[in-house]
């Protein structure tokens, strides 16, 4: 015999709000600044740690491995390999979406970090880990993140 579950008593509800606009933050954005400055000249710029040699893109002026401030700017290749990817096939509620988008994290040649972005590809099933891809910048770059259109398979 199945047990009949008694519904839980609904007690009153009261509310409160954490208004995020009551907070402010200052963020050090050396990495993004360098990245968009590079876009202007159609370059991908990062920072290299003078101690351990790690290259970060976006390149903040801090090496977390060595715990030091770093300043050396280096240019890395626009080409790299897809380190991992995902395809958004549904929205947050689980409903299928019509325009399937592919997000990738790409390890650009010459860098030790991964750059995240959108991959332009006709069929998401063709993507694989290790697939060569390159950064696509728009024709006229003006030094914003929007200069980077997407990644494209090579």
């Amino acid at each position, binding site marked *: 015999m199945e047990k009949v579950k008694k519904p*839980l*008593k*609904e*007690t009153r*509800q009261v509310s*409160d709000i*954490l208004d*995020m606009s009551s907070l402010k*933050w200052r*963020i050090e*954005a050396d*990495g*993004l*600044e360098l*990245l*968009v400055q590079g876009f202007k000249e159609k370059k991908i710029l*990062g920072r290299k740690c003078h101690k351990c040699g*790690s290259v*970060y*893109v*976006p*390149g*903040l002026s801090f090496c*977390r491995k060595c715990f030091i401030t770093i300043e050396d700017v280096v240019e890395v290749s626009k080409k790299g390999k897809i*380190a*991992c*990817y*995902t*395809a*958004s*096939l*549904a929205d*947050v509620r*689980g*409903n*299928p979406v019509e325009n399937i*988008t592919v*997000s*990738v*994290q790409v390890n650009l040649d010459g*860098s*030790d*970090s*991964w*750059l*995240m*972005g*959108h991959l332009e590809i006709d069929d*998401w099933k063709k993507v*694989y*880990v*290790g697939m060569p891809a390159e950064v696509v910048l728009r024709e006229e770059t003006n030094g*914003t*993140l*929007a*200069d*980077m*259109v*997407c*990644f494209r398979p090579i």
Partner: protein
Amino acid sequence: MRNVAIISVGYNGRFVAKRPDVNIPELIQPAVANAIKKTKLKYSDIGVVVEGNMPTFEGINYPHLWFSDHIGAAGKPVLRISTGGTTGMSVFQGGYYCVASGMFDVAMVIGWEKHDEGDAQVGLIGIVLPEAFSMFQFGPDMGGGGTGMMGGLSSTGGASFQALSYLHRAKGTPDHIDKMAAQARSNAAKNPYAHLQHPNCTAADIAKTPMVSYPLRYGHTCPASCGACVMLLVAEEKVKKFADTDRVAWVKAVATASSDATTGNLVDGQINDPAEQAICEKIAAPKAYKMAGIQNPKKEIQMCEVYDGFAHQELMWPEKLHLVDNSCKAIDEGRLAIDGDMPVNPSGGVVSTNAIGASAMVRVAEASLQIMGMAEGGHQVPRRVKNALAHGWGGLFQFVTITILGDEPVKR
């Protein structure tokens, strides 16, 4: 170093999605009462209380202040520890250090979450809000589509990167994740405290659920639960006095390690593969095994409870913990089942029950119940568990905590 034993575990009841009948302290209190009931302890014997949850999920700063009177903490030392997903185990380890340090003989640890009071999704996005919004100052989002950025920032998006990267390394397929999720849901059906219970769930059942973010389906993700877990820890000299059972679980090792964010770190430049988890494989796990005196974890450990917010992690973590060589192969061979040779999450895991602040503690609690032989409802591992491992992860895929329990204290 003093040896510390877990003498009792208490849950508030079955973990569920909504508890409209109680407020937060009323949710937690029965877990405290249940833990104490199974011992010879009185409230006055408890030396210190250690508590934790995810504070922004319920919007209460230092919530332990409020439920002082409900958890036997009024007039007592209370320590609050909160470290994201690992909170439960960080709290447990806090309790361990309270006793191991010699400062206290008895510690009560509490991990809880009442997800129906707040918005967990907003709470999770809150991890990266300042960084994400700072990007707008450099023009619209990278990648043009919006998903490029947010896909990496939402928890499921980050996890799907990890899942694919893991499958690539382990040469597995998404079917393996379906299988793992099915095993978790079936195990949960044998655990009276689990949230999502699905008796005899099959991989085909899971494969029917919609794909959220490739390769992760709805059936691979965890629910948001309301629940609390409480454990009582006592010093070796006091075990006989307070324990109501001959079989207690001894803490053999504790370890933790953190890196920077391994997904969603858009401002700083991410430098770790989220599926690499060197903090676990190379730092925390070796440290824990050394402390526990375990040379061959595959042989010496009989079961594990890993923190699997997403089903693929139940495959990944046993590998990173040196318990299984290849989990995809192991699940095909049935070795990860309750009656297998390395049972993973007999409780159903986090993927079946997730009250975040409690989740990592529940891993320790379940591991200890397996050692005590007290896992209820048919999820007890059939062979004698001499050593068990509990694991938690948190943050942006960047924290790891490990606890190893045994049926005998370590001779130090």
